[in-house]
């Protein structure tokens, strides 16, 4: 987009405004799945319910994902200073933490399935897997984007004077993170505290 920020009517770059708009839409996507999960949180059809969650384990992987937002900020900061080498380091760190989180989710899903919570066990199971699965898919896409950014910064497609590109992916990444903050609280913590009381 040649039209830099100073030429647009609102003074915001098109791509950034487009990303914000898209993320606004995404909130409703996750919101509807989350509402569905809450409706079914006790509809376990005799199968496992929220007591199956391993809060300490998921806390750790959630912490890793939260920290990846910090490295994302550091990457963007490095890019605004034109330091692509440092930017690449933080980008790799972010993607790596995303991968750790994703690995944790795959492991967790495997454990749950072995403990009898399969996709079709109950509305609780289906809504849990679809909700957190879609979040995992978003993390996966985020990792792809980060690795693409990393590669393109090596080939010269992403230049030192284009921090907007890092910022855009950062916006997406923070969004995925914020969604997880809500999901972890509402899906794991609150039901665990209230249902088991």
């Amino acid at each position, binding site marked *: 987009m040649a039209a830099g920020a100073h030429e647009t009517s609102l003074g915001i770059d*098109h791509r950034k405004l487009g990303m914000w*708009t898209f993320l606004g*839409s995404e909130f409703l996507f996750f919101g*509807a799945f989350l509402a569905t999960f809450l409706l079914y949180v006790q*509809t376990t059809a005799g199968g496992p319910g929220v007591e199956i969650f391993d809060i300490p384990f998921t806390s750790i992987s959630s912490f890793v994902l939260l920290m990846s937002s910090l490295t994302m900020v550091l990457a963007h900061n490095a890019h605004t200073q034109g330091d692509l080498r440092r930017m690449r380091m933080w980008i790799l760190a972010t993607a790596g933490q995303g991968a750790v989180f994703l690995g944790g989710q795959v492991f967790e899903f495997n454990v749950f399935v072995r403990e009898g919570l399969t996709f079709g066990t109950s*509305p609780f199971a289906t*809504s849990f897997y679809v909700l957190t699965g879609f979040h995992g898919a978003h993390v996966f896409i985020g990792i792809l984007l980060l690795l693409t950014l990393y590669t393109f910064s090596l080939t010269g497609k992403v230049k030192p004077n284009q921090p907007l590109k890092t910022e855009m992916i950062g916006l997406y990444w923070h969004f995925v993170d914020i969604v997880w903050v809500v999901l972890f609280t509402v899906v794991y913590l609150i039901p665990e505290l209230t249902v088991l009381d």
Partner: protein
Amino acid sequence: MSSTTATRPGRYQRPNPREGFISWITTTDHKRIGLMYFWTVLVFFFFGGVQSALIRTQLAQAEQSVLTEEIYNQVFTMHGITMVFLVVMPFAAAFFNYLIPLMIGARDVAFPRLNAFSYWVFLFAGIFLYSSFLLGGAPNGSWVGYAPLSTDAVSNMGFYAIGINALGISSLAASINFIVTILNMRAPGMTFMRMPVFIWMALVTSFLLLFAVPIISTALFMLMFDGVYGGQFFEPATGGDPILYQHLFWLFGHPEVYIMILPTMGIISETLPVFSRKPLFGYAAVVFAGAAIGFIGFGVWAHHMFTSAMGPVARSAFALATMFIAVPTGIKIFNWVFTMWGGKLRFTTSMLFSIGFVSMFTIGGLSGVTHAIVPHNAQQHDTYYVVAHFHYVLFGGALFGLIAGVYFWFPKVTGRLMNETLGKWHFWTWLLGFNLTFGPMHMSGLLGQPRRTAVLPAELGPTVELYNLLSGVGLIILFGSALVFLYNLLASTKKGELAGEDPWDARTLEWLTTSPPKAHNWDKIPTVTHRDEFWHRKYAEDEAGRPVAVPAGAAEDVGDPRGDNAEALDEHIHMPDASYWPFVMVLGLVPLMYGLNFASAPLIAIGLLWAIIGMYGWIIEPLAEGDDDDPLDAPNPSATTGAVTY
């Protein structure tokens, strides 16, 4: 324009054909994409019309069995899906594409390749939906797709869940594109309250899409997981709640009603002032009423579900909200009437369709208010009274207005006028056929004729039978009328009377440029100083407030955007290059959609991989010269002309 094809060593070139098949496959020009939407819509409209003919044939007499019940169910389901998702919505998208950049003084939309992507997704999702006829039968669980019927394999609703979801991607991409375009690419001086009402309604519609599409998307994903992959969302046996589907569907479905009607309201707010030779009465009221409809539209969905288990409190709340939303709609009706009041009316075909819209939509709106009354609603639920109501707002409303827009902007698009005599034949037969088809449904519905029933029960009596026969006769008139329209459209494109640049004495910016507009729309971006900018360049006011023509060239404010030095300006204009990638990427969607429907992992993998490769092609293809990816990092010559170079 010439500059976009300049050779840059060491980088592969983007395609830039000007004509032929490839030029349409690769186009990123908003005007061409708008036209592709339009012609595709006509094809789907034909299919939808054929389905309605089958329905009316079956119901022409009681206890007929021209179609089997299975086929009848497929036909009415596909009729609904087609008319809502493949006709009215993309018809509006055709207008949005063609007109938004022209009316706000931009050269293209914010993301031209994403725009092409939206169109191709729409096309292939439509083809995917129709391919179901050859692959074991079309969806037969009605366009609302209520679970748990729709999660049962017998209903073929996999095509519905996946096809509509793909259409949602198209709508979502388009809405983001239009929102950014309208917010960010207005010509200098075009403040929000100087935007044409059509642009306002396009903006509200885009926001409605932005927030409604993700909700239907979740509902359809749930249907797909339940139907194809053994999920339990709506399975009552394990405690799943089918009412949840209804809530999610209508939380999208009611805003969807406004998504279909608001673009038309925008069109009418442009045509009525022009043909009344008066500014729109109460511009601010119309704009705020449109925005209010957008907000309240998200709070009335459950009036579609008054007969489902909800409880009296929810019913009362939604009944109140539903009556409340009639207020902003009523405001608009009065504004349109007062725009015509005391005006110098010219009854062109476009004006006739506009007035047709206002009157037919009012009838549909009034029967809509009756649905807000809960006991009344319970009586009418799933009868033909409801069918009559929503055809009055969608056919008598949305479609009348969209056709008014076709007659109005045809000279803009082609440089020629449509034949007015044929146009008037079209209008009067259309009005007659429409009322004959859908008017009697009010009565047959109140007499108890059920919707979505393959056989008209004989015990309803000869009166109901007569009403159904009248509907069939009306449909025949509508078909004849549509043929007149089609002939007029094709013949006028070829040899219609030349329109000149301002055939209607119009008011808004799009008439300031040539007809048809050049690929780059404007040689020089106009500066806007008034609402109804074009009108104010043509007319000043005398002491009594009457318009007085300004002598050519005497308008003090700005230069002619078609300027004398067009050649000199031309070389600084950078337009988006054409691209294969949106098309290539969407081709990956085809195996993905079939793979999801038939639970075939290899097809899903091929589709995903293809789409990802397409996406990388999209990212790494060289952008047009002069943008921030240019290797030369030269100072950007287009900066002063506001060019679009994505």
